[in-house]
Structure formats: structure tokens, C-alpha cells
């Protein structure tokens, strides 16, 4: 016991003595004999592992919840992408434009294995605005980097083919 601790203990004992009055001696004896030793024992050997266990359990629970949340959000993102790509197959130009707006917000989150679906939309849509919006998206995500990457459309869609190529050159003047 250091001198400082001893000093503090004496002060503390004096305070308790003032409060407890005649009962002081009996209380201190009881504490010394029973509770104090048991309390010290309990604090040193039992309570600390419980707190450690609780902390560790909380951390594990948080990690599990984070993993589940991440997995679910990934699944939701995949489902949303499935849905939007399905919308892109609609025969209505406005539905397709809505889908392309959603895809634009996803941007580079569109995985490479889904790029063929964008390519199909570019090739099969009969609406030039849908084709241009698809081309813009594919350029932005790196699915089309040169004019040769633009798929060949049906001969009956020659005007759209020329428009797509002109737009590509407009956006990439160095490409020919």
C-alpha cells in the first residue's frame, strides 16, 4: 500500500466514521471479515470475464448482422438489376428509357457478365433514343470503347446504325 493510498483510505474511514457513528466499528469488522474479501475475490475472478464475454458476444453479433445486411443488400441489388434489365426488354420506348435511367444510376455497379443484355437491347430495340441511351451507358461503363464495338444492326435499321456511329464519333472525336 502506497502512502497516498493509505492517506486516502484513512480519509475515507474518517468520513464513514462520521456518518455511521456508534456502528462504525461493527461495520468495519464485518466488511473486513466477510464482504470485503468476497467482493474483492468476485471482482477479480468472475466479473471481468463476464464483461469480456459480453463484449466479444456483442462484437460477434454486430459482425453477423453486418454480414446478413450486406448479403441481403447484395441480393436486393441483384434483384433490382434483374428487374431493370427485364424492363429494358419492354416494347415500350418510355419503359426502356426509364430502365436506362435506373441503370445509369447504377453505373459501374453493372457487372460485366450483364453487358450482353445491354448489347441485346442496343441491337434489338427499334427506338433510336433507346439505342442512343444504351450506347451512352455502355460507353460510360466501358462496355464499348471503340466504334467497332457497336454491334451490327439489321439492314432495315441502317439509319439507326449511322446515327449510333455518328453519336459515338461525336462523343469520342479521336475515334474513327
Amino acid at each position: 500500500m502506497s502512502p497516498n493510498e493509505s492517506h486516502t483510505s484513512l480519509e475515507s474511514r474518517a468520513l464513514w466514521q462520521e456518518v455511521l457513528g456508534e456502528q462504525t466499528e461493527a461495520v468495519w469488522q464485518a466488511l473486513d471479515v466477510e464482504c470485503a474479501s468476497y467482493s474483492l475475490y468476485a471482482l477479480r475472478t468472475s466479473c471481468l470475464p463476464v464483461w469480456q464475454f459480453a463484449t466479444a458476444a456483442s462484437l460477434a453479433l454486430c459482425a453477423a448482422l453486418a454480414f446478413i445486411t450486406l448479403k441481403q443488400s447484395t441480393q436486393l441489388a441483384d434483384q433490382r438489376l434483374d428487374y431493370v434489365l427485364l424492363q429494358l426488354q419492354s416494347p415500350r420506348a418510355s419503359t426502356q428509357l426509364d430502365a436506362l435511367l435506373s441503370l445509369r444510376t447504377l453505373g459501374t455497379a453493372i457487372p460485366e457478365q450483364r453487358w450482353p443484355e445491354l448489347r441485346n437491347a442496343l441491337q434489338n430495340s427499334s427506338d433510336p433514343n433507346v439505342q442512343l441511351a444504351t450506347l451512352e451507358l455502355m460507353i460510360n461503363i466501358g462496355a464499348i470503347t471503340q466504334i467497332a464495338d457497336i454491334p451490327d444492326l439489321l439492314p432495315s435499321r441502317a439509319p439507326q446504325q449511322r446515327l449510333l456511329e455518328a453519336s459515338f464519333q461525336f462523343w469520342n472525336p479521336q475515334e474513327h
Partner: protein
Amino acid sequence: MKTDHFKALLALTILSAPTFAWAADTGELVLADTQGITRLLISGRYLNIEIRSGGNIAALQWHQDAHDPSLSDGQNGLTTLVMPAMEPAWGRNDETLVLRLNDSEQSWRLQLQVPSQWELNVNVMELGDIRIEGQQANVSAWSARGDITLSNQNGSFSITAMDGNALVDLLAAPVESSAITVWNGDLSLALEENLNIDLRILESRRLQTDLNPLLTATPDAQAQGTRYSLNGGGAEITLRNLNGGMAVLNRDTLP
């Protein structure tokens, strides 16, 4: 007896189709049963098309242009004989009414009356103007060479004029994404000042306007193009012009 039957049949045929009996270059078709049809698709190479909304009747007046520049006589002294054309025929594919003239080298002028709730898909692959008035549904139209005019439109739209002007006059804000693209020509969009829309301007860096919400809107420069939110924003309308002017006009001050 057989002769009487033949005469009666001939008379009935002539009475039921008077225009087709003598001339195939002009005529009228009325579609009596439009039950279940929600969409009209028209495509062809040389078409001038006017479509008006009207009731529940679908009707087509057609005329094959006599002075077709693509069929004028050459300089070699030979005369081109123009074969009588078959009249256009409606087709049906589920809920879509189809009128295709893709294989025709002739130039056609079509005037149609269709229910305003029908969605329209109109394509001109070579040459011709498209005029559509008063539709209350999605309209998708493009022409390789010719003007496109959409007036009193109350629905989403996708318009492309590759070599010509495009004018869209909006009655109400579309609820779905819409777009106008012009390659060589002028692009005009006329709308009410109070419509809630997002305008996305691509390719063009100059825009003429007398629309107050657009004049006061803060431009949001993006990686491609500029975006303006009018009256709090709404469905997106993309305007794209590769070579030409672009104007967004107040339809109340249009001449």
C-alpha cells in the same frame, strides 16, 4: 340462274368496296372492331403520316403520291411504268394493330384517326414527315429524312428526326422518361411554365428559351450534358441535337 348469282355477287363487291374497285392508289379503310387493341405500329420507307385522335374509331385514308421523285424518268429516254399498288392492309399482333409498308418503293400519304389512348409507334425508314396530334399515350416516332411534329401531346414520347426538324408541344408533363433527338435540324420543345420535369440537355451547348422556370433554374453540369430541374423536377426529358439549334419554348406565347 348462275348468271343472276354472279351479277348479285359482283354488285355487292362493288358496293362494299367502291374505292378499291377502280383505283388502288387511293382509298379508305375503317376498322370496325378495335376491342382489345392498345397500340398501333406503322412502318414504311416512303411515308407522310398524319395521325389525329378521335373517339373509338380507327380509320385510315391513304393515297399513293403520283409525283414520286424517286420514280421520275431517267435521262436514258426510258419511261418508268408505275404498277398499281396493293392497298395497305391492317394486321394484328395481340394488342398491337400493325400497318407495314416496308417492302413498298412507292411513296404513301396516310391520314389516320385513332383512339387517343392508343400507344403509337411510327417509323419512316427513308423519307417522309410525321404529324401526330392529341395523343394521350406513349408515342415513339422516328424518320430518317423528314420533320416530326407532335402537338397537344399528353403522354410520354420518344422522337427522333435524323435529317429534319422535331417539334414537340406538350399539354402535360409525361410520367415516364421521354426523349427528343435531332441529328441534322432544329429541335423545339414547347410546354407550360408550371410543368414538373427534369430537362437533360445533351450534345448541344446552346439553348434558346423564354421559359421562366428554365431561366431561373440552376444548371447541374454532369459528365455528359446538363440537367435542369423545373418546378421541383419530375420525369426526365432528354434533348439531344448533334448539329443544329435547340429551343425550349413557353407554349402560351407561341404564335
